[in-house]
């Protein structure tokens, strides 16, 4: 088992830059992931999430800056390779081979042999719920089973840091929940997990900390609760009765001069203020004076969607 430096961050990226020709995939990223953390890397497709993960694994080398994993310089470093497990976005398995033969191959890549390897194979197959199907060719598996096996191949050597690159793409809700259970158990066992996704609800459900990445820049990184409190804690949703003559944005601003922002959302508006109870009172009062029945007026549960919108000015695109 590879050693980790005492007190070191699981991942410490400093001014990390990666360019492919004239295209900048990552620009001066500073990333800190604490040991034992369940870290969500949130961003749209093409934002730079996979590139960042490939820099941590050593698949890619940075154009600038540095990255350390548990105090070891990442790159072509066997010490780091033994500490890290990588689950790629695509299912990267040998379809014509059985699950057992696939796992045996990846186990041997980490120098697992003999009894130790057999024990790990049994444990991991049990963990991902594929013991019964171990001797069947992977090509006969469902999408969800392949995803579970994809994870299994990365945890055979018991990595301290597990990198999951969009591990639920294309799986049904049942399989997704099963994968979530696996990830939670790994976290309970002390594995540091970096979970990349463009599904905000997944990151909200699983992660303690979140890094928001867009156009190759890490825009914000903090505890999930702190991010929500800071960027998405003061919104109300209001829906006015239809009136072609009314400028709704202007009406909101006039009704509450302390309004910080207002964005159209569906049939209504998301309005933000320093004190949202005061905002709601002001809107109710203004509607009452105009004898107007508000169709909806409610507090908005803080979400990463709001955080992302606030930080990037865009909704999370799925391109």
């Amino acid at each position: 088992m590879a050693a980790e430096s005492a007190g070191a961050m699981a991942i410490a990226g400093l001014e990390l830059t990666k360019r492919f020709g004239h295209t900048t995939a990552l620009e001066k990223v500073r990333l800190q992931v604490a040991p034992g953390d369940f870290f969500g890397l949130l961003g749209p497709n093409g934002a730079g999430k996979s590139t960042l993960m490939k820099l941590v694994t050593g698949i890619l080398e940075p154009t600038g800056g540095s990255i350390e994993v548990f105090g070891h310089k990442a790159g072509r470093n066997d010490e780091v390779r033994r500490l890290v497990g990588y689950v790629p976005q695509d299912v990267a398995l040998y379809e014509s081979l059985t699950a057992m033969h696939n796992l045996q191959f990846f186990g041997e890549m980490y120098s697992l042999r003999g009894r130790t390897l057999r024990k790990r194979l049994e444990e991991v197959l049990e963990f991902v719920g594929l013991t019964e199907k171990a001797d069947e060719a992977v090509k006969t598996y469902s999408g969800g089973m392949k995803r579970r096996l994809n994870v299994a191949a990365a945890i055979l050597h018991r990595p301290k840091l597990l990198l999951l690159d969009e591990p639920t793409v294309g799986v049904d809700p049942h399989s997704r929940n099963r994968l979530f259970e696996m990830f939670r158990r790994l976290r309970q066992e002390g594995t540091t997990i970096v979970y990349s996704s463009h599904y905000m609800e997944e990151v909200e459900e699983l992660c303690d900390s979140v890094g928001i990445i867009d156009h190759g820049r890490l825009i914000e990184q903090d505890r999930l609760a702190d991010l929500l409190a800071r960027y998405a804690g003061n919104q109300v949703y209001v829906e006015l009765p239809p009136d072609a003559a009314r400028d709704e944005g202007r009406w909101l601003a006039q009704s509450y001069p302390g309004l910080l922002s207002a964005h159209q959302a569906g049939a209504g508006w998301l309005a933000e203020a320093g004190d949202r109870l005061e905002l709601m009172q002001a809107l109710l009062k203004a509607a009452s004076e105009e004898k107007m029945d508000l169709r909806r007026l409610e507090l908005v549960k803080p979400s990463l969607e709001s955080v992302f919108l606030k930080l990037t000015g865009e909704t999370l695109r799925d391109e």
Partner: protein
Amino acid sequence: MILAVWLKELRKLVRERGNFVYLLVMPMAFMILFYFLFNQSGTGIKLNIVDADHSALSQQFIGAVKKIPGFQVSEATDGISQVRQEVAQGKLNLAVIIPQGFAAGLAQRQPVNITLATGPNAAQSTGPVSSVLERLGQRFADPNRPPDLVQVKVEQAGGGPAPSIASQIVPGYTVMFVFYIMITILRSMFKERDGGILERVKTTPLKAYQYMLGMWLPQVLAAMVQIFVLFAFGHWLLKLELGNYGLLFLLSLALALCATALGMMLTMLAKGENQGMAMMQFFTLGGAAMAGLWMPLDMLPATMQKIAHILPQYWAMQGYQALLLNTGDRQVVWTGIGMLTAIALVAVGIAATRFKQFARAE
């Protein structure tokens, strides 16, 4: 770790049944097809003769032509114009027309023209047939040599029995199809790269040279098994004599190393799977034609015979034929082994230098 990659690759080879089809079934089918095509009696150039002279001499001439091996002669009962029309339409390939006055002309020592009517598909046969008829006609014109004494005898140089056609077909198609293993290598490596497995493997402690050796060596073994099966097939079914087993093994090993190393090299050089496939098809089929795998090399034009010397298929074929025809020329076999091994080493060297670029080219 090399062993793990090696084992995995062998398992993949065995499980993908398509490999068996074009590495074993196809060459066997070709061997059987061509063996029976060229080994059957009754095959040869079909010649239709119209005897417009109806003389004893013209019948003697026809009798002499019939005795020549390689000709299937039939006498046409239709008239000259009808036969000419059938030749023009491609219904008949060749027709020999003996003109009226053939015997009288020869008796008076006058020039006599035998016509060889050729159809649209007779280009390859015209030269030899014309030449044979001309020589035969000259003998008939010589009053001192009775025409019925003309005989054509075919004998094998060296005095032994004529070699079996299997000694051309079995090594020819074995060498040709061994190079198809390049396609297996190409598909396997591109699948690993484009499917993300190579990238995943790069996150493990496995070294690049271990990966390459692990991918290469099982293919060498597969090629050796292929050669063994095809020669065993030729020996037991097509009655091919195998000669010196030790040298046969060494030459086969050199061939397996060479074909697989070239497969690794071309895979690393190809910009994509389709481009690689095209390069390999060209090399495999073009090389087979130019190196004398389909027909004896001396039937090819002189320039192509010279070009053949740069092809590994040529060296393999020369070595195998020296062994199978038991010529006693060990030098040819050892030269073949040396050339194939040298090409393999150069190819592996090039593949190794290109691997990094291949691995990151996705």
